[in-house]
């Protein structure tokens, strides 16, 4: 394997079609990069030609998601167009009535706004904190072995423990926040101030997802071979420069993965936190879309309403994800 100095650097190759430029830096620096791509494919990636094998490899997952997701989800979402009786025994077809009722209700639009704020805040907080922590841990200073484990522990906490612990930390009369309230009385009260309640659920949710993001960031960073870092250091790049120009760009695929997953989960997986901590209050300040679905459908037995809301939520998340794939992924350099 020869390693020309151009291979270590960033040599743009001529673009084919509308594809993004691909770099050949990174962990595979020992592999010769080809300058020209003769292929005519849109994606410019090598592949195996056996069709049937490809399909056979993905068949198990397709079978699983059809049986355990799409079939049940189809039944559940069909209920959005009817008024379904929880115990069965009949339903009324109402077409789009559930949707129109939902979309003309200002309370519902409030939940859309709350969900968007929550998603942005928790994703931003979790990812930025996790990235910083991963970069710091990756430096492998003394004690890094402990950090690598303990910083992942929050993801393993059981929900009841999370609720109890955060109640202790964040409740205005208990524990830590009581000090704050002694100095500035009435400043912090998540039972009555909507913004405080939103902060509570953002912190509790992010706390878990910082761990989640951290482990994936760390895995990606640890896959960057030491020789590369040393080479860059010898080229005169300081610590921060290496972080900014080498490590973070190499993290781009992981970053994209985590942004999409964090945003999606903050829309679809956050009802547990809300149920434990605020139950949508005070005065609907933390009534996230998914919590409303959980409350109406799982607790309140309004299957049709919950199904209609679920369809709207799914469409929202799908559009958001497509937007990310189209606009953000374009700028990621995979190779």
């Amino acid at each position, binding site marked *: 394997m020869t390693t020309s100095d151009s291979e270590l650097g960033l040599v743009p190759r001529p673009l084919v079609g509308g594809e993004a430029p691909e770099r050949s830096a990174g962990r595979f620096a020992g592999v010769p990069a080809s300058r020209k791509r003769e292929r005519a494919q849109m994606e410019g990636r090598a592949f195996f030609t056996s069709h049937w094998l490809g399909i056979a490899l993905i068949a198990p997952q397709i079978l699983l998601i059809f049986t355990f997701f799409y079939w049940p989800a189809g039944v559940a979402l069909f209920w959005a167009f009817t*008024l*379904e*009786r*929880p*115990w*069965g*025994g009949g*339903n*009324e077809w*109402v077409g789009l009535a559930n949707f129109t*009722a939902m979309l003309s209700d200002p*309370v519902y639009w409030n939940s859309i706004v709350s969900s968007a704020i929550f998603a942005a805040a928790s994703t931003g907080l979790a990812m930025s904190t996790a990235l910083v922590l991963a970069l710091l841990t990756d430096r492998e200073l003394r004690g890094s072995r402990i950090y690598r484990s303990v910083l992942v522990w929050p993801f393993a906490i059981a929900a009841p423990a999370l609720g109890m612990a955060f*109640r202790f930390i964040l*409740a*205005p*009369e*208990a*524990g830590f926040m*009581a000090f704050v309230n002694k100095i500035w009385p009435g400043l912090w*009260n*998540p*039972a*009555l*101030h*909507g913004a405080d*309640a939103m902060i509570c659920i953002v912190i509790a949710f992010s706390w878990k997802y910082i761990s989640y993001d951290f482990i994936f960031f760390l895995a990606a960073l640890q896959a960057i071979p030491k020789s590369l870092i040393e080479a860059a250091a010898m080229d005169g790049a300081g610590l921060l420069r290496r972080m900014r120009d080498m490590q973070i760009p190499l993290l781009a695929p992981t970053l994209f993965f985590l942004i999409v997953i964090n945003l999606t989960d903050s829309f679809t997986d956050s009802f547990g936190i809300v149920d434990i*901590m*605020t*139950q*949508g*209050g*005070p*005065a*609907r300040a933390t009534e996230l879309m998914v919590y409303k679905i959980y*409350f*109406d459908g*799982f*607790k*309140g*037995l*309004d299957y*049709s*309403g919950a199904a209609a809301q679920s369809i709207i939520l799914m469409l929202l998340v799908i559009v958001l994800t497509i937007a990310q794939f189209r606009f953000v992924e374009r700028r990621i350099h995979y190779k």
Partner: protein
Amino acid sequence: MRTTLFSAISTLAFACLLATPATADPVKIDFWYGNSGDISKRVQEVCQHFNDSQKDYQVVCTSQGSYYAAVQNTIAAFRGGKPPTIVQVFDVGTLDLMLSDAYYPANKLMADNGYKVDWNNYFPGIRAYYASSKGDMFSFPFNSSTALLYWNKDAFQKIGKTEAPKTWEEAAADMKALKDAGYDCPFAFDISEEESWQLMEQFSAVHGEPIATKNNGFGGLDAELTFNKTKFVKFATDLKNWYDQGLAKIKSPKTGEDYVAAFASGHCQMTLTSVGDHGNIGRTADPNMHWDVAMLPVYEGTKRHNSFVGGASLWVLKGHSPQEYKAAAAFLNFISQPEQALFWSTVTGYIPVTKTGFEYMKSHGFYDKPPYKGRETAIAELNVEPVGSGPGGIRLGNFLQIRGELSNGLQEIFANKKDVQQALDETVQRGNAILRRFEATYKGKQLP
């Protein structure tokens, strides 16, 4: 040493022989319930008592973690073709089940299996909640409770009173006196969705104020909410005023200490909560604190009516074999025995649901001394007047969502976003829309 070992082995062998069942395996049935924590442990004990008391049937009791999960999981199991035989359904879930075709009515079950049940033995106030319009009971009341006023005797002594307030006017005066005597929190309450039942529902019950038309929904699915036009508006206004004056404080897990813990720790001097908390407060309060319970206050000049029963009842589901129904009937018969009522009320704060149970407990001196003294107030509160003079409870569809609307409305009041009448009007408007949806879902169905 040797002989002991030999005798031990032979005893063991003999015991193994004896243990081989010569009779058929017991018929097993599933009972799904929603309680968790300490109450769940007690339910398991009840099941164990039943299993130990006979050899023909065995009931397998599984906690689903919460009332909602119990109902939801049972629906899933039922629609998947594998329901449990008995399920515990909480008050709010009653109507959906009643309008469905999924259950085996209790009165029919017992009659079909040869049990003669005196349905009049059940306290009228409790019976009315779970009965059809003809008075047939479709489910078995299991864990029943009602709301009481808890008051701190030590604090009241300081303001020169030895009795709990009987009217809200008197209570307001007491709150002021307590505040002046230096107590920071004369009255604790909570306005989360799970907690509005005592502020609105029990209040309306004892005042004889309707929550909805058509006898609170017992008369038909086309009922409409009315609590924005009743004395409840006055109560909500008063509560807000007391809150603004610092006489009443909101105590919930979100502020740190919920209102029961606040009362038990002596931080707050009065609160409204279920008789079910009587035991907890006894266990967690300082033993030197003197406290007691009393009936819910009513406004001056109002005739006192029965309070509503809360809690859950046991329903038997369709889709099982005659053997399993025999087992279910035996179990349900077992738990309605007076001895079981004594056990249940001893280990939990729930009240006996049958007159014979209550008499049995009285004759055993249950209510004579702490920690149980005082709980008979709950029974008295449920039976102030004969049944028929008012709705026996609430029979409204999607009531959980309506409770949620009320809770949001109350929160808006207390966060100063809306005034009382405006918030309640909006709650009722949204609540009525929910009721109409429910009605449309069950188009053409009559209340049984």
